[in-house]
């Protein structure tokens, strides 16, 4: 393969443009492949597994979500609500019929969210187990600059007190991984070194600053280690998790691009910053989805992280899709899902909202599919787990939970299949995902959500 020098500015300006439907060309990564197309030429390292949770709030219309027929290839066709994903049918594994056994009346959205992402019930406001992305991170994130990255398109929320309404990524109980909603802040976190300018202008200022910061972080870790000695088990664990985060910062300092030996392509270290700001009107605007989908793709492509959660909308999101038309200018949760007339197959405004969510998912999948990675694309390597916090929002049904796997998971998934598991435990989908990503957990979830096996016939 010919190694071709590319103008990174040109490429990445294209990447970070907003508004237009985007095909991310990251030929720079192609340029990094060896002649077998299986490894990064610069280092000879094989490509890493990649995982994404893609979450949308307020559920679907189950009658329009579930494909009519099961099977593979031409045996099944996309349902109405999955039509926006038509370009990716060969990458989809639809898992229907699953039931969230953990939905609690009165707190359906928070308990539904916790069940669908942790497989466990709530304990007061806290989740009781780590979410699936963090289980996967335990298996695949070692050595990655960021253990996981959480991204949100809209902060629209019902503002309830439960942790499972505020995010769908949980390191464990009381350990929320909140989404970053501001594209610029996310960009800075991923692609620039932390903060500040030193008061020196020496050419090696960056590495000197890194030395100083390392000594600061070492002192912080020593302080924390002393503190731990005075604490009981659970508080000790809390401090230890903080120190883990400090160690991760330290690790990144030591691999700043300035040392020239970075594993990631140089093009990834200084892309152009986005200009789109965060959603301040709780309306999940297309421009924010576009740029967040792009930054998420870059984070994976540039190996900043192997585990990412993209929250298109939060559980029970009080989102207003004004940009979809004047008839959509109502609270999607309160008014449209809950009070619009119609049944599970016929709530037109709900359908419009779900359709928009799936179009936004399609935009992200487009990016993954068009970004070379290893022998194929990001979508060949990645597993994208798509789910929600309820099945049918109007009455918070728990049967026919929306679950979709996109991507080939490095060959663990065949794609282009629809499997129906009537009334089977939703947690088995999480177990299946964990297994696909190489996790060795033998049991997942708690109470009615506890399972110890994967759904049959899904993984190769």
């Amino acid at each position, binding site marked *: 393969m010919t190694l071709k020098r590319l103008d990174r500015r040109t490429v990445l300006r294209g990447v970070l443009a907003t508004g237009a439907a985007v095909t991310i060309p990251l030929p720079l990564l192609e340029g990094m492949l060896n002649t077998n197309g299986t490894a990064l030429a610069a280092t000879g390292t094989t490509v890493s597994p990649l995982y994404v949770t893609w979450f949308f709030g307020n559920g679907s219309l189950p009658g329009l979500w579930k494909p009519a027929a099961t099977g593979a290839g031409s045996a099944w066709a996309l349902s109405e609500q999955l039509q926006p994903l038509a370009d990716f049918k060969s990458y989809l594994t639809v898992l229907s019929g699953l039931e969230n056994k953990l939905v*609690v*009346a*009165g*707190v359906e*959205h*928070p308990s539904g969210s916790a069940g669908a992402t942790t497989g466990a*019930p*709530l*304990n*007061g*406001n*806290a989740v009781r187990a780590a979410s699936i992305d963090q289980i996967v991170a335990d298996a695949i994130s070692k050595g990655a600059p*960021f253990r996981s990255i959480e991204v949100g398109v809209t*902060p629209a929320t019902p*503002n*309830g*007190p439960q*942790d499972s*309404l505020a995010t769908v990524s949980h*390191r464990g109980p009381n*350990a929320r*991984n*909140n989404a970053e909603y501001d594209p610029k*802040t996310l960009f800075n*976190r991923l692609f620039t070194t*932390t*903060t*500040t300018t030193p*008061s*020196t202008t020496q050419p090696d200022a960056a590495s*000197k600053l890194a030395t*100083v910061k390392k*000594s*600061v*972080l070492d002192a912080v870790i020593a302080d*924390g280690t*002393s*503190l731990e000695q*005075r604490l*009981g088990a*659970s*508080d000790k664990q*809390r*401090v230890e998790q*903080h120190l883990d*985060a400090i160690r*991760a910062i330290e690790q990144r300092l030591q691999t700043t691009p300035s040392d020239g030996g970075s594993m990631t392509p140089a093009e990834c270290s200084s892309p152009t910053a986005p200009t789109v700001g965060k959603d301040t009107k*709780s309306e999940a605007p297309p421009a924010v989805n576009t740029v967040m989908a792009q930054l998420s793709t870059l984070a994976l492509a540039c190996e900043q992280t192997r585990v990412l959660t993209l929250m298109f909308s939060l559980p*029970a999101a*009080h989102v*207003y899709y004004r940009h979809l038309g004047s008839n959509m*200018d*109502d*609270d999607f*949760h*309160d008014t449209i899902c*809950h009070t619009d007339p119609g049944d599970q197959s016929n709530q037109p405004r709900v359908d419009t909202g779900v359709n928009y969510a799936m179009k936004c998912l399609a935009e992200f999948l487009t990016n993954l599919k068009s970004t070379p990675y290893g022998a194929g694309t990001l979508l060949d390597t990645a597993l994208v787990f798509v789910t929600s916090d309820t099945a049918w929002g*109007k*009455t*918070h049904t728990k049967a026919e939970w929306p679950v979709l796997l996109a991507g080939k998971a490095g060959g663990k998934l065949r794609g282009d299949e629809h499997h129906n598991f009537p009334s089977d435990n939703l947690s088995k989908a999480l177990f299946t995902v964990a297994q696909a990503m190489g996790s060795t957990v033998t049991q997942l979830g708690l109470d009615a959500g506890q399972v110890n096996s994967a759904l049959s016939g899904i993984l190769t």
Partner: protein
Amino acid sequence: MRSPLAWAAASSLAFAVACSAEMTGPGGATGAAAGMASGAGGGMQSQGQGGGSVHVNGGSPGSGGTGVASTDGTAGAASGGTNTGDSGGTAGPGPLFDNPPAYAAPAGMLRRLTSTQFRNAVRDVFGVDTDVTQLDGDSWDGNFAVIGASSVVTSDLGAERYETAIENAVNTVFADATARAKFIGCTPTGGTSDTCVRGLVQNLGLRAWRRPLVTAELERLMSVAATAATTLGSPIEGARWAIVALFASPNFLYRPELGAPATDGTLRLTGYEMASRLAFLVWNSLPDQTLLDAAASGSLGTTDGIKAAVERMLDAPAGREAASAFAEEYLRLDRIQTQAKDPSLFPEYATALQAGMVRDIRDTWAVLAFDDEASVLNLFTTPTVVVNKELATVYGLDTSGLTSTNFVTRSLPADGPRLGLLSKAGFLSEFANQKEGSPTLRGRYMQEQLLCTPIPNPPPDVNTMLPDLPDMPMTKRQRLEAHRTVPSCSGCHEYMDPLGLPLENFDAIGRYRTTDQGLTIDPSGSFDGIDVADSRALGAAIAGDVGVGRCIFRKYYSYAMGHVERAEDGSVENALVDSFQASGFKLRDLIVSLVTSDAFSTVAPQP
């Protein structure tokens, strides 16, 4: 007597989940969460936030269900302590809790500074403002961030953000040579023996960590300073990075309150731990030198010493935070700054108005507690507002001389439609969606937070289908009434809507209005079985109810103690609530008696 919520006593009440569309909002699941805590308690206290049914007083079993426990205990928890059992008046209704178990100290805590405390501490030390939304999010437990602070785990992103916030604050000071020189106060010379930086680290460290640094800690920071001074070629850089290390340390971010053995065998907070607990309760920030001196002298180990310290702290300007910071959490004012409103309906809803909404509620609490020295019950009838130009406009007050950033205390017209806390724009706006106010959410807040009656979880598997409403203009009241014709809806909504409907004269940002959908608003409702004509009558009814004062006591007790109310708190609460009531529900008196109680300074070993 207060309406009980007893599922067991009203098993035919099915709860309509669809009716709960609005209940997923602010506070919408608070009561449910409390119920869950008692059910699912893995590893947590076995009591729900309501205090449990074991020590409920008032109401006779069978007369309507107070104290009748449901199968999972939530109803009992729900009714715990709301039991004034009287019809108002000033006479004490008897103990808050009957036959409480003996007091047992809760385990010592390691609390993380709340976002607000972090901001205040950084402001007090560096004079730099921090955007609280750029820190790790608070956790809320028992409706308080100061309680969630003892269990919250810092995320990777959060750790980065704290570090960044400190670097930014130090950079701001160091960017200005004059400010920097003043801050350091001497001339750094570099090296580990730099006496200037050593003294700075010692003094600043005492305040930042709320205790003296031990030798190893001091030397560690001096080593950071020496490395920075040498590597970056400037002794000033040594000072800079030692300060960053001091404030990036877990010893700044976390507050250990673990106690030390006293002669009687109990674990008492050390003098420095007591100084820290007092400072964060009364000032919501770091202790000052005088308080740290008191800690060093041992005087915070005596009741008189604590009393003298807290009186001084309450007299200081920052002492108003003892009311304001509580109000900020109690009323969840953090939400106001993150909540969007429909820009076409509410073009005035922007940063300045939101700031006004927050300031109005915070400062009104402080004015009543510290300037008027009034009962907390007066909050519900007070004409006092604290306004900037934008908020004065919403309130229909004269705006001459006002700007967005200067706030003045004003009185609303005594005969106007708006009086008291519940008609403040911040409260009304918070319990509303982007377009319209929510009687259900407003009522739910009142039921749970002012009456201490959590709405329990409904029984599972109820029929949740709602009839579709006719396609014609209806007021919010009419729509809610239509829903309440469904028996499965009315069970819960009866406890919320009649409290919230009197506020229908105020829209989604708290503007006064007389029509809804072009139809005249009927603002009548009821409180504790008393019909009220409108929001003023509602405020007057609430202000006349000692049960509300006693409920606010319970909330403040939890807030001050930093943990969710337990059955074991009953005896301490019984004593404190009586003195609070005897004082005429004066918050300042409550704070003094609370911090001088043994419970405030006693802990148990960490498990």
